[in-house]
């Protein structure tokens, strides 16, 4: 496996231009999720409107993998019901841990993160923001 299999162009693009990345006012922050192995963190906010996730934004510090996966996550959530979102999160986390397979269709551009699975030490980077989203839904009581 070459390094650009891990850091694919799609991933790098999300890292350099993270979608929905935007400094959050302290009052907005729903969840501040930390990766204790490296000291990085993601802060996240989300809204639910008419039973569907309407908006996800985040800021924080992290490696390319964590920022890119947060960016991809923030693109996929809007439009889902909380239950659909939770299922997606669980599937993705299980996939990253090598506990579950997902087909191309389900994965979409998340396939760019599949290489991370070979590096157990980096799996937390790729799941941190997804855990944060899960907690945000709980916080919102939905």
């Amino acid at each position, binding site marked *: 496996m070459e390094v650009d299999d891990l850091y694919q162009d799609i991933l790098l693009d999300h890292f350099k231009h993270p979608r929905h990345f935007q400094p959050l006012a302290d009052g907005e922050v729903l969840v501040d999720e930390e990766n*204790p192995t490296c000291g990085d963190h993601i802060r996240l906010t989300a809204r639910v409107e008419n039973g569907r996730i309407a908006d996800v934004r985040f800021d924080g510090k992290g490696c390319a993998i964590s920022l890119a996966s947060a960016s991809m996550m923030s693109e996929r959530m809007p439009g889902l019901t909380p239950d659909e979102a939770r299922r997606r999160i669980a599937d993705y986390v299980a996939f990253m841990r*090598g506990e579950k397979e997902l*087909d*191309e269709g389900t*994965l979409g551009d998340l396939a760019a993160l599949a290489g991370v699975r070979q*590096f*157990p*030490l980096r799996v937390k980077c790729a799941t941190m923001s997804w855990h944060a989203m899960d907690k945000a839904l709980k916080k919102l009581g939905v």
Partner: protein
Amino acid sequence: MSNTSSSSPPPLVPPVACVCNEQVGAGPFDPRRLRQDFPILALTVHGDKTLAYLDNAATTQKPASVVCVLCEYYQACNANVHRSIHYLGEQATQRFEEARKKIQRFIGAPSERSVIFTRGTTESINVVASAWGRRSLKPGDEIVLTGMEHHSNLVPWQLVAKETGARLKFVPVLDDGTLDLEAYERLLKGRVRMAAFTHISNVLGTVNPVKRMTALAHAAGALVLVDAAQSVPNRPVSVTDLDCDFLAFSGHKMLGPTGIGVLYGRLEVLERMEPFLTGGEMISRVTLEDSTWADLPQKFEAGTPHVSGAIGLGVAVDYLQRVGMETIRDYDERLARYAIGRLEQIPGVRIFGRAPERSGAVSFEVEGVHPHDLAQFIDRDGIAIRAGHLCAQPLMKRLGVPAVSRASVYFYNLEEELDRLAQSILKAKEFFRHGS
């Protein structure tokens, strides 16, 4: 990339290519063939005497595959684990954690998070006595031990009892070397918070009914620690079946390297416990003033672990499973009974321990020959046994002797080695009575 994205991740580490070409997989159980896997057993000592190693309850010998994996580890993937993002670091981490999973499966633990690497049984028990006991015990609480415990499962409890005001109670040992189970049930009527007992006595060879004892202790509201130093090497042991809260054992007594052992703990109990050693690896957040702990099992594994030891223990477990734990149990018991039969033919020999279910450890005394003189004398014939109090001074007192001699067999021993033992003991008796 996209072609592989939905298949499981390919293994990072190529399978260990062991060059030692062991006999263990090559046919039905045959101790004579398996001996070829243990180079040390072919040693001749004191000139031309073939080694008869009968001190297996102290420590076992290691098969070639265990020695081999140590070399291979240091020559192909040595690195610090868990935090090194580089080729060697990923390899070492993966193999270290793979070893943990092997041990988890071997002892039937529900999660690898409940398998903690320690230096050995002694440290494992100290972790529980200290990290659980010092915080949980109140004055007047009771700890039930037995009269046949190794010092390792006695002294730590003495200290924690002194510190907390808890009281120790002891299940007496009956004349046949079994525990007085009626007394045990009576003792459990007190304010018992912990029952800690050995699965198999390292002196008497007695196999205690630990499953039943655990159920009784649980019914009385106590936690249970099983000292499995002598049992995990000797027979199938499943923590799920025993239902104990803690299980402690040592790698070096089960074909593994020195310096590594295991503490199994029930997840809920481990999760409520504070750590024992603190420092690197076991923390989550640290400021100058305060710290929070990592998840299990790291919470109990401060500092750089004994990586090669854990990996070696994993390979030892592989070996044991290929021999078969039922096979080992049955063979050890048969050989121990053969040894007893041979020793009993010698006038003046007295055997300690007549339990109906027993392991490969046989302790005895020879009239007129001090155990240390006996061990020294028969060593000259290449025969290695143990003499002394065997880290069980209270049990010695119960037996009415300062010390005993112990021959302890393992699956690679042979009847003819026990014949040599008997002959050499006869010679010793003669020698110390009449001189050479």
